[in-house]
């Protein structure tokens, strides 16, 4: 440890201090930002405002973002693509998926057969960590994590999504102004 002498201010620095140069410089900076923001016509894309106007403007999430789960349906027949194979539930590290299947009687080539179809799908979004391992495990690309991120609800029970919510999507208020 040694004693070091900090340089004394030279004449120019003393002049700057006397005329409050740095104070005025700071005031100029804030004034520049103020005028820039106040004259900003388009607050969404403009230069003056740097904040995102969230409820008005939807934020762009990253392509790899994982959000609310969804059960995809066949676009033509509107039947679920889920074959109740239970692979997603097995893949889930948090154990937040329950697949409830049921057997139905079908007639295949004139003979009665029993087929396993999806009855109910429970997805607990409060435990989910959005790793999307279930999405990777799904053989029919039925279960998918979408880019929707508004998952908050007023009760704990609201976090548990059933088959209808997973297929239709949950109703949320979309603010436009």
């Amino acid at each position: 440890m040694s004693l070091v002498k900090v340089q004394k201010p030279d004449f120019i620095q003393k002049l700057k201090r006397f005329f409050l140069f740095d104070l005025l410089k700071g005031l100029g900076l804030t004034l520049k930002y103020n005028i820039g923001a106040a004259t900003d016509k388009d607050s969404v894309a403009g230069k003056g405002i740097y904040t995102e106007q969230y409820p008005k403007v939807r934020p762009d999430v990253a392509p790899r973002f994982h959000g609310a789960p969804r059960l995809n349906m066949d676009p033509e027949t509107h039947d679920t693509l889920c074959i109740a194979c239970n692979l997603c539930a097995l893949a889930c590290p948090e154990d937040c998926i329950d697949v409830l299947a049921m057997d139905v009687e079908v007639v295949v080539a004139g003979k009665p057969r029993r087929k396993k179809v999806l009855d109910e799908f429970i997805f607990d979004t409060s435990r989910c960590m959005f790793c999307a391992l279930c999405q990777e495990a799904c053989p029919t690309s039925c279960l998918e994590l979408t880019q929707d991120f508004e998952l908050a609800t007023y009760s704990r029970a609201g976090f548990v999504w059933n088959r209808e919510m997973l297929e239709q999507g949950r109703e949320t208020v979309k603010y436009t102004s």
Partner: protein
Amino acid sequence: MIMLALFAPVNFINDLLSRFFAPETINNVVWPVIQIGVVVTVVATWVAYGTYLERKISAFMQARLGPMRVGPWGLLQPIADGLKLLTKEDFIPEKADRWIFFFAPYIAVVAAFVVFSVIPFGPDWAVITDVNIGLLFVIAVSSVGVLALILAGWASNSKYSLLGGLRSSAQMVSYEVGMGLALIGGIMFARTLSLSGIVAAQAFDSIWFIVYQPAGFLIFLVSGIAENNRAPFDLPEAESELVAGFHTEYSGFRWSLFFMAEYAAMVVVSAVATTVYLGGWYFPFVYKLEVSGWHNAYVIVSFLVFIIKLSLILYLYFWLRWTLPRFRYDQLMDIGWKWLIPSALINIVFTAFSVFLVQALDGWHGLRTIESMTQGLNLTATGKVIMIGLGLVGLLLTGGLLSLINWRSRDFHLKSQRRNIRLVSVPSGTSAVASTRPAAAATES
């Protein structure tokens, strides 16, 4: 209402009133009551929208938008805020001194609002009352506000409140001295303490006293900001140290009264600064309206001029608040006692000398500096040039003199202590790396 005032016959309202009241009652009771009502309404609205403006301006300075959700551009935000504050619980701590706790906010508000009675918002009917010691009244009454802060801090029975109250009392008492002393320079030119008289002196001389008194204006402005406990001098309510200072324990309506008092006090200081240094409602060429017979239009335009000048100073308040960081407590006392009060004293002496010099120069080698002395000190063009030059010299002289005096003693010797910083693993005798300039000495070693 403005349209009515512009186009209605001048005596229309008077005629209407004379059907119900005696003439003495109209002049002494009815008109003052109307004026007081208008002023209180306008000031209360300003206080509400002052918070909105402050939030907007601070947002713009930080490249944000600020309140946008309540009404178009968030214009109804103050109403939402007010409703929220009114419906909040009015909590009084158990150990608090109930009555003092109860009354402290009212003292703050009354002290801030009473001052508006003497401020000339415009020429004729825009003044509630013209007291011949107006300036003295303003300073005396606005300093009662300190009492409210001390009482609030004491009555809350909380350490943060007490410390905040202590700080505010020390700060406001010390800055009031500089504030009062700074105003004396302006009074020397106006030769009256009446605020209307000061404006009239500036209008008669067709000049603003800021050009005669730049040093006085700066001292008054800094003292005023400190007096209002506004950033960068907002130590009584320093969030990082004292939670919320003297109003830590206050909530709901009582808290909003303190808030109102703060913003009203800001308007008071700005109004006094406008009146004494920026010519009040006076603006060149506006009097032509009066000459051509538009008396009420003249009053209203003058009032608008006053409001614009006031807004400029209020913008300066916001601007400084969102630019400068808070001072340390010893620095605050330092600025007050070592810089502002001595410079105000130097300014008084120098202004007195300048006024004497200008009067002495009158008639010297045929030089004419004095026009007349009927309404304030009325100078000719030559006298004005001399006085403006002397004002600038006074500013530099004051600053230079105080820099020389305070150079060694600043910051309780912290500066000289800081020059000898101990740094790890730097050879002795070399410059510290902390310098902003390229350290030539460091590279040599």
